[in-house]
C-alpha cells in the first residue's frame, strides 16, 4: 500500500495527483494527509516553507502560544510546545527561521485532539521560532526567540 502510494507520487508528479485520487475516493483522505510533504520540508527559508505549506503570509495571532525556553542550554534538544485557544484547529506546524530548512514538524489534528502539542527540535543557532496554526481554514502565526548557547568545557 505504502509503496504503491509512493509510486503514484513519483509518476504522478506530486500531491496534486494524490489529492485527485483522494477526491475520487480511491484512497482514504487520512492516508493522503500522511504522505510526507517533501516540498515543504525541503523548502529552505521560512518564506518558502510557508509558501510550500500554502500559508502565504499569515497574520500574527495572540491566541497562539509557544512554550519554549528563552535560552536553550543545548541546541540539539530545544523543547517546543504549541497551543492555541483558536477554534477548529486543523494543523499546527513548527518552523525555525535560521535552520537550513525552516519547517521542523507539522501536526494534523483530527477533531477531538486538543490544539496542544509538544516536541523537541534541533536549532543550529539562536533563532526565531514560529508556530503556524491552520484554524477554520485560515493560517495564523506566533513567534518567539530562542537563544542557543554554547556549553561544556570542550566545544
Amino acid at each position, binding site marked *: 500500500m505504502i509503496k504503491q502510494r509512493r509510486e503514484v507520487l513519483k509518476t504522478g508528479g506530486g500531491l496534486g495527483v494524490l489529492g485527485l485520487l483522494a477526491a475520487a475516493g480511491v484512497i482514504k483522505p487520512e492516508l493522503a494527509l500522511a504522505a510526507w510533504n517533501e516540498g515543504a520540508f525541503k523548502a529552505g527559508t521560512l518564506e518558502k516553507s510557508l509558501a510550500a505549506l500554502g500559508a502565504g503570509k499569515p497574520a500574527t495571532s495572540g491566541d497562539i502560544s509557544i512554550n519554549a*525556553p528563552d535560552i536553550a542550554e543545548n541546541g540539539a534538544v530545544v523543547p517546543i510546545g504549541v497551543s492555541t485557544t483558536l477554534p477548529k484547529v486543523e494543523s499546527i506546524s513548527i518552523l525555525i527561521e535560521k535552520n537550513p530548512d525552516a519547517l521542523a514538524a507539522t501536526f494534523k489534528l483530527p477533531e477531538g485532539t486538543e490544539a496542544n502539542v509538544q516536541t523537541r527540535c534541533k536549532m543550529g543557532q539562536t533563532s526565531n521560532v514560529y508556530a503556524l496554526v491552520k484554524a477554520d481554514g485560515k493560517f495564523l502565526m506566533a513567534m518567539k526567540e530562542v537563544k542557543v548557547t554554547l*556549553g561544556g568545557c570542550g566545544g
Partner: protein
Amino acid sequence: MNYRMLSQGLAGACLVLGTLGAGSAQADATTDEIARYREMIADGNPSELFALQGEELWKQKRGPRNASLEQCDLGLGPGVVKGASARLPRYFKDTGRVQDLETRLMTCMETLQGIDPKTIINAAWGKGEREKMQAIVAYVVTESHGEKIDIDMKPPQMKKMYELGKMTFYYRGGPMDFSCATCHGDKDKRIRLQDLPDLRTQAGAAAGWGSWPAYRVSNGQFWTMQHRLNDCFRQQRFPEPIYGSDVTIALSVYMAATGNGGTVMTPGIKR
C-alpha cells in the same frame, strides 16, 4: 599530605589562598532560564529507551553459557536489582574487591554468562558488549531512582579506596595542570553555563553522584558513570583511564561516600 604538614608547621607564615578571583556575584536571569530549560526536558527522559533495552538484556539468555543475568548479585543478593545501585560501590567478599556497578556487572557477565570482561574493557563506547553494558546500567540505575545513597564505609577496603579517591581528586597533572578539584573544588561555580557541583561537600557530591548515569542531550547518548569519569579525565587532559580501573573505583567511592544520604536521581538528563 607532606605539604600540609609543612604548612601547619609554618602556620604563622601561611596564608591559605582562595585560588579563585572575587567576581562571583554573576547569578542572573540566564541561570533561571537555563533552570527552566532543564525542567522542560526532564519530563520525557530518553534514558527510558535505554532502560527498556537493558531490562531485555538482563533477562535474555546470552553468552557462551547461554544464561541470563537474573541471578546476578549486585550486593543485595542474587537477582535483587531494586535499590542495588544506590548502595554501590561496595566491597564484595567473593571477588575480594571494591566494585562499582559496571565492574560488578562485568563479574556477573563473566561468571554467569561466560562473557570475557576484555570484550567490554577494550570495546569503544556505544559498541559491542560495551553498548550492551550501557543499556543494562540504564535499567539497573532506574531501579534505584528515589532511593537514598547508602554506601557502606565500614570495610577497611572501602576506607582505603576513599583515601585513594580523595588523593586522586586533588591530583594535579597534565599539560593544563588540572585536577578534579580545579572545577569541582569550590562552591557556586560554573563552567560556561553549566553549574559545577562542589564535590567536596555532601550536597555537591550527592547532586553530582546522584544524577549520573544520565542521558546527554548534546549527543543523544546514555552515559554510565565510567563514561562520565572517562570524559572528565579527557577534559582534564589526562591520559585515558582504563575501563573499570582502580582510579575510577576510588573516585567513585570518594564521591558516593561524600554524598551519602543524598537522593538517587538516576537516570539523569544532562546537557
